[in-house]
Protein backbone atom coordinates (compact mmCIF):
# COMPACT_ATOMS: atom_id res chain seq x y z
CA UNK A 1 0.00 0.00 0.00
CA UNK A 2 3.03 2.27 -0.46
CA UNK A 3 0.95 3.88 -3.24
CA UNK A 4 -1.18 5.76 -0.71
CA UNK A 5 -0.82 9.49 -1.37
CA UNK A 6 1.52 10.86 1.28
CA UNK A 7 1.46 14.60 1.92
CA UNK A 8 4.31 15.94 4.04
CA UNK A 9 4.80 19.65 4.58
CA UNK A 10 6.82 21.97 6.78
CA UNK A 11 5.63 25.55 6.88
CA UNK A 12 5.61 28.69 8.99
CA UNK A 13 1.96 29.54 8.22
CA UNK A 14 -0.97 27.98 10.06
CA UNK A 15 -2.58 25.04 8.24
CA UNK A 16 -6.21 24.45 7.35
CA UNK A 17 -7.30 21.32 9.24
CA UNK A 18 -10.72 21.34 7.55
CA UNK A 19 -9.23 21.42 4.05
CA UNK A 20 -6.79 18.59 4.81
CA UNK A 21 -9.56 16.46 6.33
CA UNK A 22 -11.92 17.10 3.44
CA UNK A 23 -9.20 16.40 0.88
CA UNK A 24 -8.14 12.99 2.13
CA UNK A 25 -11.41 11.22 1.30
CA UNK A 26 -12.73 13.58 -1.39
CA UNK A 27 -14.26 11.77 -4.36
CA UNK A 28 -13.58 8.34 -2.85
CA UNK A 29 -16.01 5.68 -1.65
CA UNK A 30 -13.52 3.18 -0.26
CA UNK A 31 -12.43 5.15 2.81
CA UNK A 32 -14.15 3.97 5.98
CA UNK A 33 -12.17 5.81 8.65
CA UNK A 34 -10.39 9.15 8.88
CA UNK A 35 -8.43 10.04 12.01
CA UNK A 36 -6.89 13.45 12.62
CA UNK A 37 -4.55 14.66 15.31
CA UNK A 38 -3.94 18.36 15.86
CA UNK A 39 -1.25 19.44 18.31
CA UNK A 40 -1.75 22.94 19.71
CA UNK A 41 0.43 25.40 21.61
CA UNK A 42 -0.68 25.59 25.26
CA UNK A 43 -0.36 28.76 27.37
CA UNK A 44 0.91 26.74 30.36
CA UNK A 45 -1.31 28.56 32.81
CA UNK A 46 -0.71 31.93 31.19
CA UNK A 47 3.08 31.98 31.63
CA UNK A 48 3.83 31.28 27.98
CA UNK A 49 3.73 34.02 25.35
CA UNK A 50 4.79 31.79 22.46
CA UNK A 51 6.69 28.69 21.47
CA UNK A 52 9.49 29.06 18.98
CA UNK A 53 9.93 25.99 16.84
CA UNK A 54 13.44 25.58 15.49
CA UNK A 55 14.00 22.91 12.87
CA UNK A 56 16.75 21.40 10.77
CA UNK A 57 15.59 22.56 7.34
CA UNK A 58 17.67 20.09 5.38
CA UNK A 59 16.54 17.07 7.40
CA UNK A 60 13.09 17.73 8.87
CA UNK A 61 11.08 17.07 5.73
CA UNK A 62 13.20 14.07 4.79
CA UNK A 63 12.70 12.54 8.22
CA UNK A 64 8.96 13.24 8.13
CA UNK A 65 8.82 11.51 4.75
CA UNK A 66 10.65 8.49 6.16
CA UNK A 67 8.20 8.28 9.08
CA UNK A 68 5.21 8.69 6.74
CA UNK A 69 6.54 6.01 4.38
CA UNK A 70 7.01 3.64 7.30
CA UNK A 71 3.42 4.23 8.44
CA UNK A 72 2.16 3.56 4.90
CA UNK A 73 4.17 0.36 4.83
CA UNK A 74 2.94 -0.88 8.22
CA UNK A 75 -0.79 -0.07 7.85
CA UNK A 76 -3.13 -0.31 4.83
CA UNK A 77 -3.60 3.44 4.43
CA UNK A 78 -5.52 5.17 1.66
CA UNK A 79 -4.08 8.57 2.48
CA UNK A 80 -1.77 10.29 4.93
CA UNK A 81 -1.10 13.95 5.74
CA UNK A 82 1.61 15.20 8.07
CA UNK A 83 2.20 18.93 8.46
CA UNK A 84 4.58 20.54 10.97
CA UNK A 85 4.99 24.25 11.53
CA UNK A 86 8.15 26.11 12.46
CA UNK A 87 8.79 29.60 13.80
CA UNK A 88 6.91 31.46 16.52
CA UNK A 89 3.58 29.98 17.50
CA UNK A 90 1.15 31.61 19.94
CA UNK A 91 -0.95 29.74 22.54
CA UNK A 92 -4.07 28.31 20.93
CA UNK A 93 -2.45 27.99 17.52
CA UNK A 94 -1.84 24.62 15.87
CA UNK A 95 1.70 23.21 15.63
CA UNK A 96 1.30 19.83 14.00
CA UNK A 97 -1.35 17.95 12.04
CA UNK A 98 -1.58 14.29 11.15
CA UNK A 99 -4.46 12.81 9.14
CA UNK A 100 -4.81 9.14 8.20
CA UNK A 101 -7.42 7.42 6.05
CA UNK A 102 -8.08 3.69 5.88
CA UNK A 103 -10.88 1.22 5.20
CA UNK A 104 -11.05 0.37 8.92
CA UNK A 105 -10.68 2.36 12.10
CA UNK A 106 -7.95 0.36 13.85
CA UNK A 107 -5.44 1.05 11.06
CA UNK A 108 -6.32 4.75 10.90
CA UNK A 109 -6.00 5.18 14.69
CA UNK A 110 -2.78 3.17 15.02
CA UNK A 111 -1.09 4.88 12.09
CA UNK A 112 -1.97 8.34 13.46
CA UNK A 113 -0.58 7.46 16.91
CA UNK A 114 2.54 5.95 15.37
CA UNK A 115 3.08 9.07 13.26
CA UNK A 116 2.78 11.37 16.27
CA UNK A 117 5.02 9.20 18.47
CA UNK A 118 7.67 9.08 15.75
CA UNK A 119 7.39 12.75 14.77
CA UNK A 120 7.85 13.69 18.43
CA UNK A 121 10.99 11.62 18.88
CA UNK A 122 12.56 11.56 15.38
CA UNK A 123 11.64 14.73 13.47
CA UNK A 124 14.33 17.39 14.05
CA UNK A 125 12.26 20.13 15.71
CA UNK A 126 12.99 21.85 19.02
CA UNK A 127 10.68 24.02 21.08
CA UNK A 128 11.86 27.08 22.96
CA UNK A 129 9.58 28.95 25.36
CA UNK A 130 9.04 32.70 25.26
CA UNK A 131 7.54 33.92 28.52
CA UNK A 132 4.91 36.64 28.93
CA UNK A 133 7.29 38.52 31.27
CA UNK A 134 9.51 39.09 28.24
CA UNK A 135 12.24 36.69 29.30
CA UNK A 136 13.43 33.96 27.02
CA UNK A 137 12.43 30.74 28.63
CA UNK A 138 14.00 27.34 28.45
CA UNK A 139 14.20 24.84 25.70
CA UNK A 140 11.42 22.33 26.24
CA UNK A 141 12.91 19.11 27.55
CA UNK A 142 12.30 15.80 25.83
CA UNK A 143 10.05 13.54 27.87
CA UNK A 144 10.65 9.93 28.81
CA UNK A 145 6.97 9.29 28.22
CA UNK A 146 7.46 10.23 24.55
CA UNK A 147 10.38 7.84 24.18
CA UNK A 148 8.32 5.08 25.79
CA UNK A 149 5.40 5.85 23.48
CA UNK A 150 7.69 5.52 20.46
CA UNK A 151 9.24 2.30 21.75
CA UNK A 152 5.92 0.47 21.66
CA UNK A 153 6.11 0.46 17.83
CA UNK A 154 9.53 -1.23 17.76
CA UNK A 155 9.64 -4.42 15.72
Amino acid at each position, binding site marked *: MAQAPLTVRIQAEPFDVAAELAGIAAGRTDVGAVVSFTGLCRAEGGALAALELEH*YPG*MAEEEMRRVAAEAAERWPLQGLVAIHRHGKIAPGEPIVLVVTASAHRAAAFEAAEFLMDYLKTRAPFWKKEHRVDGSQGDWVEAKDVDDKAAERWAR
Partner: protein
Amino acid sequence: MKIVYFAWVRERIGKPEEELTPPENVRTVADLAAWLASLGEEYAYAFENPTIVRAAIDRKHVKPETPIAGAREIAFFPPMTGG
Protein backbone atom coordinates in the same frame (compact mmCIF):
# COMPACT_ATOMS: atom_id res chain seq x y z
CA MET B 1 33.41 18.68 6.70
CA LYS B 2 30.42 20.84 7.51
CA ILE B 3 29.23 20.66 11.09
CA VAL B 4 25.84 22.12 12.03
CA TYR B 5 24.30 22.73 15.44
CA PHE B 6 20.71 23.19 16.61
CA ALA B 7 18.77 24.43 19.63
CA TRP B 8 20.83 24.67 22.83
CA VAL B 9 23.82 22.96 21.25
CA ARG B 10 23.86 25.83 18.75
CA GLU B 11 23.33 28.44 21.49
CA ARG B 12 26.11 27.06 23.68
CA ILE B 13 28.63 26.86 20.85
CA GLY B 14 27.50 30.26 19.60
CA LYS B 15 27.26 29.50 15.90
CA PRO B 16 24.89 27.55 13.68
CA GLU B 17 27.53 25.82 11.56
CA GLU B 18 31.18 25.69 10.68
CA GLU B 19 33.64 23.95 8.40
CA LEU B 20 36.12 21.78 10.31
CA THR B 21 38.70 19.16 9.51
CA PRO B 22 39.05 16.78 12.45
CA PRO B 23 42.30 14.84 12.90
CA GLU B 24 42.57 11.36 11.39
CA ASN B 25 42.08 9.51 14.68
CA VAL B 26 38.53 10.91 14.88
CA ARG B 27 36.67 7.99 13.33
CA THR B 28 33.16 7.89 14.86
CA VAL B 29 30.43 10.32 15.84
CA ALA B 30 31.43 9.85 19.49
CA ASP B 31 35.09 10.58 18.61
CA LEU B 32 33.97 13.74 16.83
CA ALA B 33 31.89 14.93 19.79
CA ALA B 34 34.83 14.32 22.14
CA TRP B 35 37.19 16.18 19.83
CA LEU B 36 34.75 19.11 19.51
CA ALA B 37 34.42 19.24 23.32
CA SER B 38 38.20 19.83 23.45
CA LEU B 39 38.05 22.91 21.19
CA GLY B 40 37.09 25.38 23.91
CA GLU B 41 34.86 26.21 26.82
CA GLU B 42 31.75 26.76 24.70
CA TYR B 43 32.19 23.36 23.05
CA ALA B 44 32.88 21.69 26.37
CA TYR B 45 29.64 23.21 27.67
CA ALA B 46 27.62 21.97 24.65
CA PHE B 47 28.97 18.44 25.06
CA GLU B 48 29.16 18.39 28.86
CA ASN B 49 26.71 15.48 28.84
CA PRO B 50 27.77 13.71 25.65
CA THR B 51 25.14 10.94 26.00
CA ILE B 52 22.32 13.47 25.61
CA VAL B 53 23.51 15.08 22.37
CA ARG B 54 22.06 13.47 19.26
CA ALA B 55 23.68 13.38 15.81
CA ALA B 56 22.78 13.06 12.15
CA ILE B 57 25.04 12.38 9.19
CA ASP B 58 23.86 13.74 5.87
CA ARG B 59 20.37 14.24 7.32
CA LYS B 60 19.92 10.79 8.81
CA HIS B 61 19.94 9.92 12.50
CA VAL B 62 23.09 8.07 13.52
CA LYS B 63 24.46 6.43 16.66
CA PRO B 64 27.62 7.44 18.55
CA GLU B 65 29.51 4.46 17.10
CA THR B 66 28.69 5.33 13.47
CA PRO B 67 31.85 6.07 11.41
CA ILE B 68 32.04 9.59 10.01
CA ALA B 69 34.11 8.70 6.95
CA GLY B 70 32.61 10.18 3.79
CA ALA B 71 30.18 12.45 5.63
CA ARG B 72 29.47 15.82 4.04
CA GLU B 73 27.32 17.29 6.83
CA ILE B 74 27.24 16.23 10.46
CA ALA B 75 24.63 17.70 12.79
CA PHE B 76 24.57 17.80 16.59
CA PHE B 77 21.39 18.64 18.52
CA PRO B 78 19.44 17.93 21.72
CA PRO B 79 16.71 15.27 21.88
CA MET B 80 13.87 16.39 19.64
CA THR B 81 10.80 18.10 21.06
CA GLY B 82 8.58 18.70 18.04
CA GLY B 83 5.09 17.40 17.52
